[in-house]
């Protein structure tokens, strides 16, 4: 879709869609009474600087003008410097020893007689020449050569947990606590986010990512802007927008239980997001945006979501801070690893490369970093056609502002842990601390327990790396 778009009048398309989204809604003037029946005060108005309808809740006696200014300020922050993190999850535990394969190590070929990568199949990793990029990760090798990739060749935590769900949960909540219910990005938004704006934490998925779960501020899940259009049998003008507004209003009422509150919040936030993403939706066959680069066609929703995301990030008025999405396919390769990993890794990396090029073409690459992560690496010794769960794995940060220096070295296969797994040389919480302290310029300890400032230097989780050039 995006790459073949012939419609380049981006702004006209956008405004058309906005006019649709806002039609039929009453304007609210100063002094107008609060909408009847609502437990909270609520204001809907055109935010002229964005041209989108916004609904705002629980902001006391402020006038709409106040709102407009306040939201414009909160929403737009200080563009173009507003930093963004795009977190991409490789579900299932990707095999670090195939992604960055220690091909020069004899032990590797003993442990991996069937699955081991051979020298010459891929590019040598310049920071440690014993390692070789998987051929399907050539896009990462290319960005790394440009100094835009920070590699964590053996990242994990102690003691490692080999359960998908426990380990993933630790990474999602940013601490080794099975009971925590808020995500690490969610808690960052609780600290630095806005109480009115769900778009600040965005899951590009059919459901909200647990890493974005907050305790205070709203966040959102949108599968894609073009999917986010409301339609119903026998519903139409003049009542379409009043009905959707009434739908949102039901979200403001009292909730007698947590389940009820979840349902009310979903209605309320849905109505806000509906207005915010409308400009990026396909409308009457015309895409809501154009991409300056071509995205790969393989990879299902993944390249489409990244293309839409780049367009949304290019709108400096949209207050997006943290984004989460899932990579192509699954990485729990107990069997049939060679083919499964090649396909999924290749399709994922090709789209990530296109996304970075898109950001560069839009000249917004200086305010976005991309994180690729997985819940663990896999067992060094293969099981025949696949590998079982392991411990330390590989993770990447990608972005034009990064230093692009490896964090922690590759520990080698001669000394494994007591469960015959790779030992870690960096801790994921130190990575998070660095992102919080240096990229978001927020004290890391407010988000990750005992993480300190997040500036480069020693911490409770080992050395926090210097991330930003």
């Amino acid at each position, binding site marked *: 879709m995006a790459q073949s778009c012939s419609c380049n009048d981006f702004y006209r398309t956008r405004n058309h869609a906005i006019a649709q989204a806002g039609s039929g809604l009453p304007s609210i003037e100063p002094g107008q009474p609060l909408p009847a029946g609502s437990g909270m005060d609520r204001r809907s108005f055109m935010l002229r600087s964005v041209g989108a309808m916004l609904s705002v809740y629980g902001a006391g006696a402020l006038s709409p003008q106040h709102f407009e200014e306040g939201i414009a300020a909160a929403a737009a922050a200080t563009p173009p410097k507003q930093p963004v993190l795009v977190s991409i999850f490789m579900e299932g535990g990707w095999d670090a020893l195939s992604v960055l394969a220690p091909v020069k190590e004899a032990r590797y070929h003993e442990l991996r007689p069937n699955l081991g990568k051979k020298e010459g199949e891929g590019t040598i990793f310049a920071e440690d020449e014993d390692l070789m990029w998987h051929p399907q990760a050539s896009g990462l090798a290319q960005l790394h050569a440009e100094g835009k990739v920070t590699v964590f060749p053996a990242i994990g935590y102690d003691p490692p947990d080999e359960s998908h*769900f*426990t380990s993933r949960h630790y990474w999602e909540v940013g601490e080794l606590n099975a009971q925590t219910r808020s995500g690490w990005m969610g808690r960052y938004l609780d600290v630095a986010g806005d109480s009115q704006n*769900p778009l600040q934490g965005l899951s590009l998925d059919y*459901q*909200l990512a647990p890493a974005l779960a907050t305790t205070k501020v709203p966040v959102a899940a949108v599968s894609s802007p073009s999917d986010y259009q409301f339609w119903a*049998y026998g519903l139409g003008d003049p009542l379409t927008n009043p009905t959707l507004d009434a739908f949102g209003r039901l979200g403001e009422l009292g909730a007698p*239980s947590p389940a009820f509150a979840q349902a009310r919040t979903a209605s309320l936030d849905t109505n806000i997001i509906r207005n915010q993403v409308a400009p990026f939706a396909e409308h009457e066959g015309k895409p809501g945006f154009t991409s300056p680069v071509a995205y790969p066609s393989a990879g299902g929703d993944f390249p489409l979501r990244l293309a839409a995301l780049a367009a949304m990030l290019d709108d400096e008025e949209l207050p997006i801070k943290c984004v989460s999405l899932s990579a192509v396919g699954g990485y*729990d390769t107990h069997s049939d690893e060679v083919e499964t990993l090649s396909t999924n890794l290749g399709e994922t990396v090709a789209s990530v490369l296109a996304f970075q090029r898109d950001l560069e073409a839009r000249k917004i690459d200086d305010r976005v970093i991309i994180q690729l992560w997985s819940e663990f690496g896999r067992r060094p010794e293969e099981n025949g056609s696949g590998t079982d769960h392991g411990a330390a794995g590989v993770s990447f940060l990608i972005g034009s502002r990064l230093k692009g220096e490896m964090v922690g070295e590759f520990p080698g296969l001669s000394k494994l842990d007591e469960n015959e797994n790779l030992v870690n040389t960096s801790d994921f919480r130190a990575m998070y601390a660095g992102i919080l302290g240096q990229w978001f310029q927020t004290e890391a300890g407010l988000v990750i327990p005992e993480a300190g400032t997040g500036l480069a230097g020693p911490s409770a989780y080992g050395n926090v790396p210097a991330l930003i050039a």
Partner: protein
Amino acid sequence: MNATVAASSSKPGTASAKARAHKHGTPAAHPPKHSKHHAHKKHRKKHRRHKRHKKHLTGLPGAPAPPTIPLNPPPPSNTPPPFQGGPISLAQARRLLWRAGFGPTPGQAEALAGTPIDEAIQNLTRPSGEPALHGPTPTDDEGNALTPADAWGQDHCWWLDRMVRSDQQLVERMTFIWHDWFANSNSKVNDQQRMLDQNALFRSHALGSFDDLFMAVTSDPAMLVFLDGIYNNKWDPNENYAREMMELFSLGADRGAYTETDVREMARALTGWTADWTENEGLQKFRFDKNRFDEGTKTVFGKTGDWGWEDAVRLCVSHPLHASYFVSKLWSYFVPAPPSQETLASLQGLYNSSGHSIRAVVEAILAHPDFLNGPELVTPPVVYNAGLLRAVGRGIDTTAWSWLCSGAGQQLFYPPNVAGWDFTRWLDTSTAKARWELASYVTSETYANPWPGKGEAKYSETEEALPALESALAYWANPQLTGETHQSLAEFAQTCLEGGVIQAKWQNSPFRAIRQNALRMLIATSPDMQVS
């Protein structure tokens, strides 16, 4: 196969419906090849073909094993758990029908109200004979019988039909719970018939003995494919089933129930299963082959023996931390907050003394005051869908439900991973929007037509606001709304056509029809209707 879906599933917003139908279906990971087999080429080709249907990854299991599993459970007690007697109220009857079934049919909750509680529960837990399916048989959009073993999405619709029509509602609900408990996805099994066979297995053990169920699941072909049991042999042990049978099926992670060494030893006990791959039929002849079995001694949970796969199951269900895991996890499907220590102790005692009877524990949960009078639970997407269909008396006459439920976060036979769906996080801005779409589709045959053709009845030109709301509530079989929600809807009904919206006499009927449809949508998508 995909073309059928795309063509048949799209009435509203045709392009996006097609795009969505097209997206569904592909394995998150490729199905495994049979590694010791030679005929790889054809097999690989088959997978490539399937790959076109890219399935989105739904459902992220944020939490590890549900937080309701106690780390230090009290010992089992012989005191019976608390239960409520007396007649069941209308609100309790509605809750029972939504949580232990798939929602009331018109008048059903009203008829049940006043019945003694134990009788109302036993009607559900002790059905006799084979279930009967009442109402029209399911079809696709062209009126053809469903082919659940073959056509994409029709497996989902076939089961949804049983949920809508079965007179043994709890048996279907328990089958649904076992599908989540032993969550296998066709994205890897890649054989709808094999998934349907597993579904029949869940149904036949729905309220029986958990030990029998667990034993049957452990040797079930779909499970042997999904968790790589057929690749687990004495030469190359594969830990996939060993770990999950303890972590997710019987004991729980991070409770000190087992060690990493137990995982590895258990994997050895589970070796020996295999299957053949043939060009025409794929994987066939699932069997235990003692040549592939590791006959050495294994030490699991500190017990040493030459354990095999049946011992593996027995070791799990006789583990001292199994009963607390079982009753806590089962409880969490019915009640949102964990049980008290006393209730937990009593339920464990009941589970053990009844010989691991599922029925005994379910009966105790349904009669518990926490279930009958406690806080609400969010209704899962498939239950919501079945409940709306039951309310309007509609059977399965389209296969759209598969992609509609998928968007809402739950496509049957495709749980997101082996931990199943996260029942605590059904609602967000994406799934709420999908429920809107789903509710609209339920009305597709019976919405009030604002623009009738010649000879068709026109909608009322004079209907007042409050009667309009009453009529819309009756459309959904009079669901329970809070006073606040009812008031907000009444205000919408009263004001939405005021202030010069109706400018000409000809608009009286069509705009009232639109208001009626709007009210129906607002009721079905209200927060109140997402919980029970």
